[in-house]
């Protein structure tokens, strides 16, 4: 089994089989419908345009929050990892914001900024920045002092240094934070949407959960997951392969 595509396909089929078995064991389509039972509702939502509309709304929020959170988080993480002094000052804040419940931040954002898009994105970003910072900070602490000395002696400008010395070393940390980051962001977006937006996958999922319609909840959840799988294969993995080439070549 060496063709990666085949492996991925078989693996996904296995997951589907697991679901079929679980559905059969549960034997209650209201608790866990079989995959086949979702095709009809999925098609209906797709052709009505509902699914695409809500999916795109959620994606826009996820992308905004992701870009903002990664940029801020990486910058803060590098700064705090490199300067023990700065770290000592900011660390208590980091712990507090890291552990502030999503609900609290989201509600405060909605109340301060208003029940609008800006508030939603700010809330998600604020929720996620501390996570990115925490992971990247560890990476920045583990930077190679030898390369650092080299960059210093050869008087590299800071942009060169960032691009060619720091970021490549942080790549595994950033990749980890990014991948688990999108997931966390999308989960927070779900909460943000059901607490105060009128569109998006989270809004729909919550509505269908209220109706106890597990099937539709799954239709929406899995649609997003499908998008994530595509992003994983089309963007993340090729990028990672390129960035990691020097290790394996």
């Amino acid at each position, binding site marked *: 089994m060496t063709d990666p595509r085949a492996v991925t396909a078989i693996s996904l089929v296995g997951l589907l089989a697991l679901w079929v078995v679980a559905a059969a064991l549960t034997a209650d*389509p*209201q*608790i866990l419908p079989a995959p086949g039972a979702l095709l009809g509702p999925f098609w209906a939502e797709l052709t009505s345009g509902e699914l695409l509309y809500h999916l795109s709304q959620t994606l826009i929020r996820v992308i905004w929050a992701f870009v903002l959170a990664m940029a801020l988080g990486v910058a803060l993480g590098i700064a705090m990892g490199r300067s023990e002094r700065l770290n000592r000052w900011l660390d208590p804040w980091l712990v507090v914001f890291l552990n502030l419940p999503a609900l609290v931040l989201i*509600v405060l954002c*909605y*109340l301060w900024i*208003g*029940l609008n898009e800006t508030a939603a994105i700010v809330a998600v970003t604020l929720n996620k920045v501390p996570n990115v910072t925490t992971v990247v900070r560890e990476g920045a602490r583990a930077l190679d002092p030898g390369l650092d000395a080299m960059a210093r002696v050869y008087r590299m400008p800071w942009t060169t240094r960032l691009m060619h010395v720091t970021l490549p070393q942080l790549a595994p940390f950033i990749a980890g934070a990014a991948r688990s980051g999108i997931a966390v962001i999308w989960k927070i977006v779900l909460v943000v949407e*059901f*607490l*105060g*937006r*009128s569109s998006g996958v989270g*809004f729909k999922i*919550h*509505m269908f*959960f*209220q*109706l*106890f*319609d597990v099937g539709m909840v799954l239709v929406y959840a899995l649609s997003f997951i499908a998008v994530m799988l595509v992003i994983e294969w089309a963007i993340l993995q090729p990028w990672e392969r390129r960035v990691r080439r020097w290790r394996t070549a």
Partner: protein
Amino acid sequence: QDLPVIRAAVLQIGTVNWELSTIVDNGLDEKHGFELEVQPYADNGATRVAVEGGEADMAVADWIWVARQRAAGKDYVYIPYSKAVGALLVPEGSEAQSLQDLAGGKVGIAGGPLDKSWLILRAYASREHEFDLAAETEQVFGAPPLIFKSGLSGELDGAINFWHFLAKMKAGGMRELVNVEEAAVALGLDPDTPLLGYYMKESFLSEHEGLAQQFYDASQEAKALLRDNPDEWDKLRPQMNASTDAEFEALKTDWIAGAPERGPIDLESMDAFLQVMNDLGGQELVGQATTLPDGLFADVE
């Protein structure tokens, strides 16, 4: 001491607790031949998961929801608890006199796009004023506390919320623009339809014959106590979260006004109501319950 036990999963802050507390505190459960055990949860969804997961025997929901579940194959049975009481409120300084005046404004709705009050008001607007409320206004669906707060702050031009928040919003100066009860009447619906109720599994009820009636009796007796005996309210006050006497009185009056009359359920008006809901909310709201499912309502009187 072999009384059947009813485990009730309720929202810890739900108003249904007032009734259930009264039942337990006054021993009405044992008097009517069962034992009531209240399990508090923090979210409506949680109470439903509890019943479905077999961790509780009873929870509270509106009957359209119960009908939908029953039509989808669940053996849920409905016992009335409270009538619909809702309204659309506008901020203190608002000049709106009818729903049409909200055109171009922002309406906050706590229960989501399938909120019954919202649906009734939409039907009312289109029938009375030929005005498409959904198209002419911007809706903001949000958590009840956020709608409460945004309503008071004037960020919204109109707000529909769950009734205990409505009471507080009114106490905070907001004005009732349209009452859902009026709207229902205008639509030819029976305003006495008990929209909210308890639901239990049929399999559970059949293990204990007559339990539905026994519980209904206890519930009715508690309602009577609360209606006739102000002292009972004083006992409840600590759990009512009323910060002022005015709020306390408003909650009390509204609650009593929401208690439905004793008696069997009028299937005809229920069916009429379901048809209206089906027209408005469609399958998304009622699921497969396009007609009243058999055995939905417990046989209580």
